[in-house]
C-alpha cells in the first residue's frame, strides 16, 4: 500500500520518513485513552499520557526536521481516501521544509502548553480534566493532519478538525450558555470560510482533476488554468483563511473565543490554529504568485485587519481580550506579508508570534490564576512585586511583540514592514502606524497590570501568589524562545547569509527578489524602532499609575469594538432568524400546508355542495334529466358541425 516518490536522498531514509504517521497517531492515541478512560484514570496519569504522547511526537518532529534539513523530503502515501471515477484523493502526508517547520512549532509549543495546562487545570474534576486533555490531544492531531496533508482534502480534514476542537474547548465549561454561544459562533464563522475552501477544492478538481500539492503546483498543470480560474481559486482559499485566521470580515469569533481556558487560547487561538490560513497560503504560494489581484486583496484585508484590531485593543479592559485583538492584528500583519509576496516573512512571523503570543497568553493565565479568575485589568495593578517570573516573562513578551531589537518580534515584523515598503510606501506607513499602536496597547496592558497600586479586593490581594513550576517553566522556555527566536532570520544587511529561515524554506517558497539599498533599510529600521520606543515611553507615562475612568466619545466606539458584532447581528443573524420564523409559522403552515389541506377541503366542500342536488324530489331529478338531455343534444349538434 505504500509508495515512495519525490524528493531525493537514499532509499532507507525514504522509508524511514514513511513512519511520520506516528507523529499525529500518538496524540490521537492520547485522545482515545484520555477520552474513554477519563473516569478511571487519575489526574497525574491523564497529564502524563497527554504530555507524554506529545513529547514523543515532538522528539519525532525534531528527527523529521533534521531529516528534511539534510535534504530529505518525502510524500508518504497510505491509502486511497476517496476514489471515484477519474478523481483520486489519497490519504497522504507531505514532509517538506514548510510542514516540518510547522511540525516543530505545533508539537513544541503544544507540549509546553500541555505541561502548563496540567497545573492550570488542576482544580477541575478528574473526568473534566481528562476531557480537557483528550480535546487538547485531538486538537494537536487535527493540526498535524492540517500541516502534514499532501493534498487539499487531507488539509481540509485537519482544517475542520481544528475547528471542531476549538469549538469543544471554547465551550469547555459548558454550564455557561454564554461560552457555548461563543463556541457555536466560532464554529459557524469558521464554516463560512470552510465552505469557500471547499468550493476552491472543487474548482481545482473541476479544472485539473487533482488536489495533490505535488500535482497541482506543477508547471504543466498551472499552465492549464486560466487567470480567471487562478484568481477565483486563490480568492476562495483566502476567504477560507479569513475564517480560520480571523481576518475581516470573519474575525469576530476570535475575541469571543477567549471564553475557553487560557492555555487553549494560547495554543489554539494564538500560536497554532489561527495561523493555519497563513500556512495554507504559504503552501500554495506558487498559485498565489500567479494571481496579482488576489495578492492585492490579501494585502489590503490584512492591513485593514491589523489596524482595526489594534484600535480595538487600545480600549479593551479584559486582559485576554486585549491579547485576542492583538492576535487578530498580528495575523493581519502576516497576511499583509503574504499579500506583498513575502511568504517567508509571514511564516517567520508565524513562528515568532507563536513564541511570544503563547508566552503572553500563558502569562495572562498565570495572572488570572493568581487573581482567582479575575480578568479585568482595571482590578489589577502592582502585580510585579508578587509575580516576579510572570512579570519578567510578560515584559519580554511585550518587548518582543513591540519589535525592539534584538528580540524575535523585531526581525519578523521588520521583514514584513520592509516587504510592505517595497510593494507600496503607503502600505508601509499604515502598517507602521498599526505597529506603533501594538506597542502602545501592549505596554498599556503591561503597566496597568503590573505597575501602580493593587486595585482589586483584599481577598484577591491576599490570594496573590506566583504560579507553580509547571506553569512558570513553560513561561521561561517561551521567554527564551521569544528572545532568541528571531536569530534564524537575521536580515542580510546585518550578517550576510543570516537569513537561515529563508534559505531553509527556499525549496518550497519561491519569492521574487527585491533589492532596497542598505541605507534605506537601516533608515526604516531606525524609524520603526525609535517610534516604538517613543510609544512605550508614552504608554509608561500614561498608565504607570492607572486611574479608573469611563471611556467617552470615540473611546466608547473602540471599547464596543466599532459595533461590528451589533452590525452583524442586525444585518445577518436577525434577518435569518426572522426568515426562519416566517417560513416556519406562516409559509409552511399556512401556504404550503394550506394548499395541501385546501385541496382536501375543497373536495370535501365540493362534495357537500354536490350532495344538495340529490334532493330526493322526483320532479327535480326529472328536470335535471331533461336539462342534461337537451345539453347533450346541443353538444352533439355542435360536434357534428
Amino acid at each position, binding site marked *: 500500500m505504500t509508495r515512495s516518490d519525490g524528493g531525493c536522498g537514499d532509499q532507507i531514509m525514504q522509508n524511514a520518513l514513511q513512519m511520520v504517521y506516528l507523529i499525529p497517531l500518538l496524540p490521537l492515541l492520547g485522545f482515545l485513552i484520555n477520552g474513554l478512560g477519563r473516569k478511571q484514570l487519575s489526574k497525574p496519569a491523564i497529564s502524563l499520557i497527554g504530555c507524554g504522547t506529545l513529547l514523543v511526537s515532538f522528539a519525532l518532529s525534531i528527527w523529521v526536521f533534521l531529516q528534511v534539513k539534510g535534504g530529505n523530503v518525502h510524500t508518504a502515501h497510505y491509502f486511497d481516501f476517496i476514489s*471515484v471515477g477519474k478523481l483520486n484523493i489519497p490519504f497522504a502526508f507531505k514532509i517538506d521544509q514548510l510542514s516540518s517547520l510547522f511540525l516543530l512549532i505545533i508539537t513544541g509549543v503544544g507540549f509546553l502548553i500541555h505541561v502548563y495546562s496540567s497545573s492550570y487545570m488542576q482544580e477541575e474534576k478528574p473526568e473534566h480534566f481528562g476531557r480537557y486533555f483528550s480535546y487538547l490531544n485531538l486538537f494537536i492531531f487535527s493540526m498535524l493532519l492540517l500541516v502534514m496533508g499532501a493534498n487539499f482534502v487531507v488539509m481540509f480534514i485537519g482544517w475542520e478538525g481544528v475547528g471542531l476542537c476549538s469549538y469543544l474547548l471554547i465551550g469547555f465549561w459548558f454550564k455557561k450558555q454564554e461560552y457555548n454561544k461563543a463556541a457555536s459562533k466560532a464554529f459557524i464563522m469558521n464554516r463560512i470560510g470552510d465552505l469557500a475552501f471547499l468550493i476552491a477544492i472543487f474548482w481545482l478538481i473541476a479544472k485539473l482533476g487533482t488536489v495533490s500539492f505535488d500535482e497541482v503546483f506543477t508547471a504543466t498543470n498551472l499552465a492549464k488554468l486560466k487567470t480567471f480560474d487562478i484568481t477565483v481559486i486563490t480568492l476562495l482559499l483566502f476567504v477560507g483563511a479569513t475564517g480560520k485566521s480571523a481576518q475581516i470580515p470573519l474575525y469576530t469569533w476570535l475575541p469571543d473565543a477567549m471564553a475557553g481556558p487560557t492555555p487553549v487560547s494560547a495554543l489554539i487561538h494564538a500560536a497554532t490554529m489561527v495561523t493555519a490560513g497563513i500556512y495554507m497560503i504559504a503552501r500554495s504560494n506558487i498559485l498565489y504568485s500567479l494571481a496579482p489581484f488576489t495578492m492585492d486583496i490579501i494585502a489590503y484585508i490584512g492591513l485593514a485587519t491589523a489596524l482595526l484590531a489594534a484600535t480595538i485593543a487600545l480600549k479593551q479592559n479584559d486582559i485576554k481580550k486585549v491579547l485576542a485583538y492583538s492576535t487578530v492584528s498580528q495575523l493581519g500583519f502576516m497576511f499583509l506579508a503574504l499579500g506583498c509576496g513575502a511568504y517567508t516573512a509571514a511564516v517567520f512571523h508565524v513562528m515568532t508570534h507563536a513564541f511570544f503570543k503563547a508566552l503572553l497568553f500563558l502569562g495572562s493565565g498565570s495572572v488570572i490564576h493568581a487573581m482567582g479568575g479575575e480578568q479585568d485589568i482595571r482590578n489589577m495593578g502592582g502585580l510585579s512585586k508578587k509575580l516576579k517570573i510572570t512579570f519578567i516573562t510578560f515584559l519580554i513578551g511585550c518587548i518582543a511583540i513591540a519589535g525592539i531589537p534584538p528580540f524575535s518580534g523585531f526581525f519578523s515584523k521588520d521583514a514584513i514592514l520592509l516587504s510592505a515598503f517595497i510593494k507600496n510606501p503607503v502600505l508601509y506607513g499604515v502598517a507602521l502606524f498599526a505597529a506603533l499602536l501594538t506597542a502602545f496597547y501592549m505596554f498599556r496592558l503591561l503597566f496597568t497590570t503590573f505597575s501602580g497600586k493593587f486595585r482589586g479586593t483584599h481577598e484577591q490581594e491576599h490570594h496573590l501568589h506566583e504560579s507553580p513550576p509547571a506553569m512558570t517553566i513553560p513561561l521561561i522556555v517561551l521567554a527564551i524562545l521569544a528572545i532568541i527566536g528571531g536569530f534564524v532570520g537575521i536580515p542580510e544587511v546585518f550578517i550576510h547569509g543570516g537569513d537561515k529561515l529563508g534559505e531553509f524554506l527556499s525549496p518550497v517558497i519561491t519569492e521574487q527578489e527585491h533589492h532596497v539599498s542598505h541605507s534605506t533599510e537601516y533608515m526604516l529600521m531606525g524609524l520603526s524602532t525609535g517610534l516604538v520606543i517613543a510609544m512605550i515611553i508614552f504608554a509608561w507615562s500614561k498608565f504607570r499609575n492607572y486611574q479608573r475612568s469611563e471611556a467617552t466619545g470615540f473611546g466608547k466606539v473602540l471599547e464596543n469594538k466599532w459595533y461590528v458584532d451589533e452590525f452583524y447581528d442586525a444585518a445577518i443573524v436577525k434577518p435569518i432568524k426572522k426568515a426562519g420564523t416566517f417560513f416556519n409559522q406562516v409559509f409552511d403552515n399556512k401556504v*404550503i400546508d394550506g394548499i395541501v389541506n385546501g385541496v382536501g377541503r375543497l373536495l370535501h366542500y365540493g362534495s357537500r355542495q354536490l350532495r344538495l342536488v340529490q334532493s330526493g324530489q322526483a320532479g327535480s331529478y326529472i328536470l335535471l334529466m331533461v336539462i342534461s338531455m337537451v345539453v347533450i343534444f346541443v353538444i352533439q349538434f355542435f360536434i357534428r358541425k
Partner: protein
Amino acid sequence: MISLLLILLPLLTGLAAFFIKDEKLVRTWALLTSLATLVVSILGLCCMNDTKYLEYECEWLPSLGASFSLKMDGAAQLLCLLNTIAYPLVFIAGWDKTYKNAKNFFALMLFAQAGIMGVFLAADALLFYFFWELALIPMYFLCSQWGGEKRIAVTFKFFIYTFVGSLLMLISILYLYGQTPDHSFSIESFYNINLTSKQQSLPFWLMFVAFAVKMPIFPLHTWQPDTYEQAPTSTTMILSGVMVKMGLFGLIRWLFPVITGASFMWGDVVTLIAIIGMIYASLIALRQDDLKRLVAYSSIAHIGLLCVGMFTQNASGMQGVMIQMFSHGINIIGLWIVVDWIERKTGTRKMSELGGLAQKAPALTMFFVIIALANIALPLTNAFVGEFLIFNGLLGSFTQYYVWYTVLAGISIILGAAYTLRMIRKVAYGETNEITASVKDISLNGRLALGIIVVLILAAGIYPQPILDLTSGVTDSLVDKFDIIRKALLK
C-alpha cells in the same frame, strides 16, 4: 436465492410474529430474525455475490407481461444492507419499551421491512409498484395504531399524500408499459423504450412527483414533520432512515435509466427546487423548538442535497448520493434514538425546557454530539464523504448555473451547522433544571445501538472506499447513459 430470501424472511417471520402472544418472546423473535436477515444480506455482500444468487425470477402474471423478478445490483445491495442494519438497531434501541398488542406491532414492522426490501429488489415495474404500496400499508397501521395524539389526522394525510404520488407513478408506469416494444413490465423492456425527450416529460414528472413525495422534496414535504412527530419512534426511524431512500432508489433504477432524456432536460429545474427546499428547511429547522420536528426538517434539508446529487448526473455526485444514502440512514436513526431517550426520560421534546444533559448523562451526550457532528458532515465522519462528493459533483456538473447552485447549497450547510449546534447547546449544555435534574444516563441497550452507529459513522468516514466500490457499477452505467444524451444534445 439471496434476494428472494431477503424478502421472504421478514415476511414469513412477520407472519409468525402474529401468533406469539408473549411480549418478551415476540421482541426476541423480531430481533433474532432481523439479525438473521442481516446475516443473509452480508452473505450476499461478501461470499455469495454472484448473479446466480443475487437474481431470481419466476412467473407471476404472464398474460400482462409481468414476472416476479428480483435483481440485486450494487445500489440495491447497499440499501438492503442499510435496511437490514437498521432493523436490529431499532429493535435493540427499543428493547426496554412496551407496546400494546406487541405481536401486531412487531409483525407489521417486519412486513414493512419485507415491503421495503421488495422495492429495492424488484426488477419488474408492476412488482415494484406492488412492493411500493406493500411497504406503505404496514406503515399506515403502525402510525395510526401506536402513534401520538394527533395520529389519525396525520396518518391520513401521510397516506393520502403518498398514495396520490403512487397513483401518478402507476399512470406513468402504465404509459411506459404501453410504449415497450414487447409489452412487458420487465426492467429490460423498460430500458429499451425509445421516446424523445419531449415525450418523456410527462411520465418524468408523474414519476418524479411520486418519488419526491416519498423523499420528500420541497414543496411536497409537509406530511413529513407531522408524521415523524406523531408516529411511534421505532417507526419513525424506519420511515426516515430507510423508507425515504425508496424515492431516491426509484430515481436510480426506474427514472434515470428509463427516462434519461427528460431527466437530463429537467435536471436544472429539479436541482433548483431541491436547493430552495434545502435552504427553506434549514431556516425552519433553525427556529424549531420541538426536537422531533427539528430532526425532521434537518432530514428534509439533507434529502434535498441527496436529490441535488442525483441530478448532477455525474459519477462524483451520484457516488456521493450512494454513500450518503447509507450515511444518512445510519445517522438519523442515531439521532432518533437519542431524541427518543430524551423524550422518554424527561417527558418533553421542547428544547426550551431541556438543558444540562451533559452533566447528568455524559455517555448520551457523547453519542449525541458525535452523531450530530456526523449530521453536519464533519470530516472523518461518514457524511463528509457523501457531501464532499455531492458538492464536487454539483460544481463539476454540466448545469448552467453550477457555481451559484453550489454556493446556495453551501449556505444550507452553514445553516445546518447553526441549527445542529443550537440543538446541542440547548439540550446538552447549560445548567440543569427541574425537568433534567433527575435524568439518568442511557441504558445498556441504547449504548449498544448508539455504539454500533458511532463505529459505522467513523468506519465509513475514514475508509469509505469499499462502499464506493460497491456502487460504482451502477453509477458508471448511469453516467454512460447521460453521456450519450449529453453528446446528442451537443450535436
